[in-house]
């Protein structure tokens, strides 16, 4: 990649219907580092869902863009997020991924913070001067914390646009899914997260999650399994049920957000599967009727019938499909390694039977033990291995560029890549770490 400019990493030729990405963007350590500085340190990053923070003291811990943080509902009912480090000498004060606590005591010297971040206990305080201010030594809040429809986001960029502005028109899609569960008490996180690492660049997972084109090839065995069950029930086959190629489209919004939408059977909200019991099908029909009654024919039908596979730039995949509702968080750890944290959500008051179908269909496809996700992992690792063939420099992301974009086209990926390049900036950099990288890059 010696001497290549950031602006050269993408060849975007709309007039010719061609779009290519230079593969160094998925292998270079320099680019990985720039992504951390310019994208992950300057975007809104999803941290937790309201349903995980219902009671005072409930907390969730995470490493975001390399920084240890935690989010907690204080005794006063307010949600705050803090940098997870003792203001004394630095040890982690929150030492479990989740739980509930009135206080967080640093085990090193015993400084104690309440769940509002205030320093409330110092062993042997007489050792400190009059100028020592306990208030100043409270936990460091994250620079920005905002929520949208129950989703809490953090940004390390103090002057970033507010979250609503940042999400922009993608909110229409998010709102469809969030509103669709209001009749059933709203969405809540199910206990049990999938945490796994893929030996591939994080952007490959973003692409894969926005990719309707790979289903028949990568997910042959899953489709085969579902088809056998559907055919036994006298129904049409899965891909006809899911209609990826028609009644579908790709969407791309400002700031890199986007996704693909398609008609989808087997959504517990609210488009039945023939594999479900007559009682369950009647219940789904009733949910659908109530959605249309409340939100009107167009919006109600849209909520019920169509699956939404969205990216909230840069790293939150928001998925509402026949395989359930889920957040898939994508955390790069190296140019060729990504940590995935996958959380399923369910409508709080969904019946036990529909809940069981929902969870079964989620497990059948998604997650490390599913019949489909392991093959995505294989595909991504295979791409990363293929990038070792340096003489083949470019990946092609042109599909659908010269037609009205379908769900199995790649518009949504191009939107992501364009914003990625925009955030990274177009300035030159060299091929060696620390070499030729302009100082401004580190500003």
């Amino acid at each position, binding site marked *: 990649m010696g001497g290549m400019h950031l602006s050269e990493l993408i060849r975007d030729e709309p007039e010719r219907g061609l779009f290519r990405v230079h593969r160094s963007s998925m292998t270079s350590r320099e680019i990985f580092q720039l992504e951390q500085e310019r994208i992950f340190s300057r975007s809104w990053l999803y941290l937790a869902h309201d349903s995980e923070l219902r009671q005072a003291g409930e907390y969730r811990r995470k490493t975001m863009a390399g920084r240890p943080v935690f989010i907690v509902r204080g005794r006063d009912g307010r949600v705050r997020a803090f940098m997870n480090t003792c203001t004394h000498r630095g040890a982690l004060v929150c030492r479990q991924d989740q739980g509930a606590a009135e206080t967080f005591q640093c085990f090193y010297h015993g400084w104690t913070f309440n769940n509002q971040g205030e320093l409330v206990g110092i062993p042997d305080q007489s050792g400190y001067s009059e100028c020592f201010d306990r208030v100043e030594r409270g936990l460091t809040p994250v620079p920005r914390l905002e929520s949208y429809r129950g989703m809490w986001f953090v940004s390390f960029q103090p002057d970033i646009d507010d979250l609503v502005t940042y999400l922009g028109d993608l909110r229409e899609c998010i709102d469809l899914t969030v509103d669709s569960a209001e009749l059933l008490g709203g969405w809540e996180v199910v206990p049990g997260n999938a945490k796994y690492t893929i030996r591939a660049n994080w952007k490959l997972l973003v692409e894969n999650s926005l990719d309707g084109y790979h289903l028949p090839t990568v997910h042959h065995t899953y489709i085969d399994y579902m088809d056998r069950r559907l055919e036994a029930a006298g129904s049409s086959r899965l891909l006809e049920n899911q209609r990826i190629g028609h009644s579908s489209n790709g969407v791309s919004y400002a700031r890199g957000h986007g996704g693909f939408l398609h008609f989808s059977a087997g959504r517990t909200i609210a488009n039945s599967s023939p594999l479900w019991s007559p009682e369950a099908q009647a219940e789904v029909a009733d949910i659908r009727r109530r959605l249309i009654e409340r939100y009107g024919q167009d919006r109600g039908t849209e909520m019920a019938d169509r699956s939404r596979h969205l990216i909230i730039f840069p790293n939150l995949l928001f998925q509402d499909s026949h395989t359930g509702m889920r957040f898939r968080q994508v955390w790069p750890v190296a140019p060729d390694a990504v940590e995935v944290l996958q959380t399923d959500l369910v409508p709080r008051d969904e019946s036990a039977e529909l809940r069981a179908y929902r969870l079964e269909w989620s497990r059948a496809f998604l997650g490390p033990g599913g*019949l489909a996700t392991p093959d995505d992992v294989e595909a991504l690792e295979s791409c990363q291995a293929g990038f070792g063939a340096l003489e083949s420099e470019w990946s092609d992301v042109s599909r659908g560029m010269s037609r009205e974009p379908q769900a199995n086209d790649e518009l949504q990926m191009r939107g992501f890549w364009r914003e990625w390049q925009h955030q990274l900036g177009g300035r030159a950099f060299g091929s060696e770490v620390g070499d030729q990288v302009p100082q401004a890059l580190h500003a």
Partner: protein
Amino acid sequence: MPEAPLLRLEVEVFLYHEAALLDDWRLDEWLALFTPDCAYVVPTTDLPEGDPAHDAVFIDDNYERLQGRVTRLKSRHAHREYPSSRTRHLVTNVRVLQASEAEVEAAAAFVVYRIRSGQVAPYIGHYRYKLARVDGGFRIRYKRATLDLETLREHGAVSIIL
């Protein structure tokens, strides 16, 4: 539970046989070890006590789904496992927890190595079995493989049968 070495031995013989079938990829024979009302469960790493009835788990197979899993693993389209990985199921610390004439409940520790594409990934954890006595032998009514791992950092998936 008083010591019952002969029963433990009987369970061990059965579990070693199961492990050998898996490592040899004789999956149809392995499937035949299960009762029609069976369950095979693998909870997530962050919730070892996870209950498939209301929690998200990695795997919650009944016989039909287990059959689907075996069919998949025998297909050349199961990309994560085609070509098949090499595996080695090490089963140890076998304990009989409960026994009646109809069923034996047993626990064991395991390390299952998966070797493929230049990587060696050990799945470390413990089993809980309910073994039904059928025709003078055992059939698996319940198998739960609980991982001691914090995440699937080395593994990427649970694409093999634990």
